[in-house]
C-alpha cells in the first residue's frame, strides 16, 4: 500500500468560482496532505470545473447533491471547503454535518465560530464548522490579536483597500457583510473591546495590491515589545500567506490626558499603534494583486491542513 494514502485526507471544494478554483490549485500544488476528491459547481461550462477536469479531479455541476449522491467520493471526503455563498451555505451545512463531514466555510454565513489560524484555530479545532471571517479579517486580526496578548486593546480599527477587479459580484452586492463580519472578528478573535472595519475598492489600473492598515488604541505598554510582537505575528502569517508583509515600521503615538475623544464612549488615554500591511497574492489562479482572495484561500488551506492532521491523529 502506498504510504501517502495513509496520510492524505480527502477534501471537496464547493464552488467553482475564483476562490474555489484558486483553492483547488493551491491544494494540489502546495499541500501534499490534502487530496481534492471532487470540485462541485452548478455551471457545467464554468472555467473552474474545466480546470478541475483538466487536472484530473472529478467534478459535478449538480451542486451539493452531486457530492452527496456520489457515495464513493463522499466516503473518501472528510473535509469540505465551501466557497459558494452565505445563502447556499445553510443547506450545505445541514447536509454535510448529517454525513459527519468537517466544514471550512469561506462564505460570510458564519454558522460556526470565526477562525484566524494564527490566533484561535487550536481553540476550535474540533468544531464541525469553522468560518474564515473575511479577507480583511484574515489580514488584520492577527495584528490586533498579537497586541491583545500583551496589553488591553480598547479599540481596533482596520482599513482594507482592495483592487476593484478583485471584488467579485458577491462581495459587491453584500458590502455590509464585510464591514459587519470583520468588525465582529476584530472583537471576538482579535480581542479588542470594540472593533470597526472599513473597506475601499480602488479601480486603479494597473491594479493595486491589497493594502491593510490596522489602528489599535491600547493601554500603554512597552513599545519595543509590541513592535516585536507585531513583527513575529507577521512572520507567522507569512508562513501560510507568503505575500503578507509589513510595509512600514509600526507607528506609536502616546495620547496622555485627556486622550482621544470617542463620541459615545468618552476620553480614552491610550497608545495608538498604526500598522501598515500589504498582501501580495501567490498568483496561483488569481492575479498577484488579488491578495485579498489569496489570503482567504491560503488561510482556509492552512485550516484544512491542521484539521486533517487532527483527524489523522484521532
Amino acid at each position: 500500500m502506498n504510504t501517502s494514502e495513509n496520510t492524505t485526507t480527502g477534501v471537496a471544494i464547493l464552488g467553482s468560482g475564483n476562490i474555489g478554483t484558486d483553492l483547488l490549485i493551491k491544494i494540489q500544488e502546495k499541500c501534499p496532505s490534502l487530496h481534492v476528491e471532487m470540485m462541485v459547481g452548478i455551471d457545467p461550462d464554468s472555467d473552474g470545473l474545466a480546470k478541475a477536469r483538466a487536472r484530473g479531479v472529478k467534478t459535478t455541476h449538480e451542486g451539493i447533491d452531486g457530492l452527496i449522491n456520489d457515495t464513493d467520493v463522499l466516503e473518501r471526503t472528510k473535509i469540505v471547503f465551501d466557497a459558494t455563498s452565505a445563502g447556499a451555505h445553510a443547506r450545505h451545512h445541514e447536509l454535510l454535518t448529517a454525513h459527519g463531514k468537517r466544514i471550512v466555510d469561506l462564505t460570510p454565513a458564519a454558522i460556526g465560530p470565526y477562525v484566524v489560524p494564527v490566533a484561535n484555530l487550536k481553540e476550535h479545532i474540533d468544531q464541525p464548522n469553522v468560518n474564515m471571517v473575511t479577507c480583511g479579517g484574515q489580514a488584520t486580526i492577527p495584528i490586533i490579536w498579537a497586541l491583545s496578548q500583551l496589553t488591553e486593546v480598547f479599540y481596533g480599527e482596520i482599513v482594507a483597500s482592495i483592487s476593484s477587479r478583485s471584488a467579485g459580484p458577491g462581495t459587491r452586492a453584500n458590502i455590509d457583510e464585510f464591514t459587519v463580519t470583520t468588525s465582529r472578528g476584530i472583537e471576538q478573535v482579535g480581542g479588542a473591546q470594540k472593533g470597526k472595519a472599513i473597506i475601499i475598492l480602488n479601480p486603479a489600473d494597473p491594479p493595486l495590491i491589497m493594502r491593510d492598515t490596522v489602528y489599535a488604541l491600547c493601554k500603554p505598554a512597552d513599545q519595543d515589545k509590541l513592535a516585536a510582537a507585531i513583527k513575529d505575528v507577521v512572520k507567522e502569517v507569512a508562513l501560510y500567506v507568503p505575500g503578507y508583509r509589513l510595509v512600514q515600521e509600526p507607528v506609536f503615538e502616546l495620547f496622555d490626558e485627556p486622550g482621544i475623544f470617542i463620541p459615545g464612549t468618552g476620553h480614552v488615554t491610550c497608545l495608538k499603534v498604526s500598522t501598515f500591511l500589504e498582501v501580495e497574492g501567490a498568483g496561483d489562479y488569481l492575479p498577484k494583486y488579488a491578495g485579498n482572495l489569496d489570503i482567504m484561500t491560503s488561510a482556509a488551506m492552512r485550516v484544512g491542513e491542521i484539521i486533517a492532521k487532527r483527524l489523522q491523529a484521532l
Partner: protein
Amino acid sequence: MTDQKLIINDCTLRDGMHALAHQYTVDQMVEIAKKLDEAKIDLIEVSHGDGLNGNSVNYGFSRHTEEEYITAVRDVLTHSKLAALLLPGIGTREDIKMAKDLGVDTIRIATHCTEADISRQHIEYARSLDMDVVGFLMMAHMIPTSQLVEQAKLMESYGAHCVYVTDSAGALLMHETTEKITAMRENLDVQIGFHNHHNLGLGVANTILAIEAGAHRVDGSVAGMGAGAGNCPLEVLIAVTERMNINTGVDLYPLMDAADKLVRPLQQRPVQTDGNALMLGYAGVYSSFLLHTERAAKLHDVDPRDILVELGNRRMIGGQEDMIVDVALDLKRKKTT
C-alpha cells in the same frame, strides 16, 4: 435649464465637518441650521464628514454622536428637510435605519465613480424605508463621461431618485462639467445633481454651468465650509442665481449672516484656495485629505504638497486617508537616505 424649481442642498454641517476636523458643537450646528432654515434651504445635510458611521481613527472622531447632531438640528427646522450621507464600506444599512428613525428624509449614497454597484444594497434598502434616495458618484473627474453615465444608470436602476456628479477633488474644468451634466440629462430619466469643491476656484462657475446644463439639485456650503478649499459658497451662488433670475426660493440675507457671523469665525484654518488646497484640485486628490495631509506633513517633517502629488500619482481615492501617513513615511525615508 429645467422648468422645475432648483433644489438646493446645503453641506455646511456635513462637508463642513471636514474643515473643523469634525469638531462642531451641537450649539454651533443648531445656530447655523436655524439660519439655513430661515433662508428656506430645501435640504440640510447632517452627518460625519465621511458619512454616517464615519467616526474612526482613520477619518477622525466627531465631538458628538451623530444621533445628538441630527436630533438637535431636526428639532429647529420648520421648512428645510434633513439629509444624511452614507458611504458603503464605511456605514451600513443599520445607519440608514438610525437616520430614518431620527427623521432624516433624504439619504445620499456615495461611492467612488466606478463602484456604483456596491450601492445597490443601500439604495434598495432606503427605498424600502420610503426615503428620498440620491446616488452620489464621487471623484467624477477621474473617468470619461460615457463611463460615468453607465455607473449613474446602475444607481438609477437600483431606485435612486437622483444621481449626482460629485467633483470631490474640485478638479473638473468648466467644459467637463457641462459635458458630464448634459450627458447625464440625456441618458437618465431621474433627477441629476452636482456637488463640487472650490480647489480650482470654480465652485460657483461650475455650479452655474451645471444648472444651465439641466441639473435639478445642486450643493453648496455657507462661506464654502467644506473639505479642501471648501464647497461652492452657497451665499455667493444664491446671489448669482438671483441676478440670473433662476428660481431657488432661497433668501440671500440669512445666508450672508450665517456666513459672516456664524461660519467664518469658526474657521481656525481658513477655508480658501491656498497652496495646499489648490494642489488638491491640480493633482485631482480627494478634498478631505487636506487636514490629514497637513497633520502628517508636520508630524513626519515632509512637504504637504509632495504628499498630495504622490497620493495623486498612486491613484488614491476617497476614504484612503490611511495612505497619507504611508506616503509621508515613504517620503521621510527617501529624504533621510
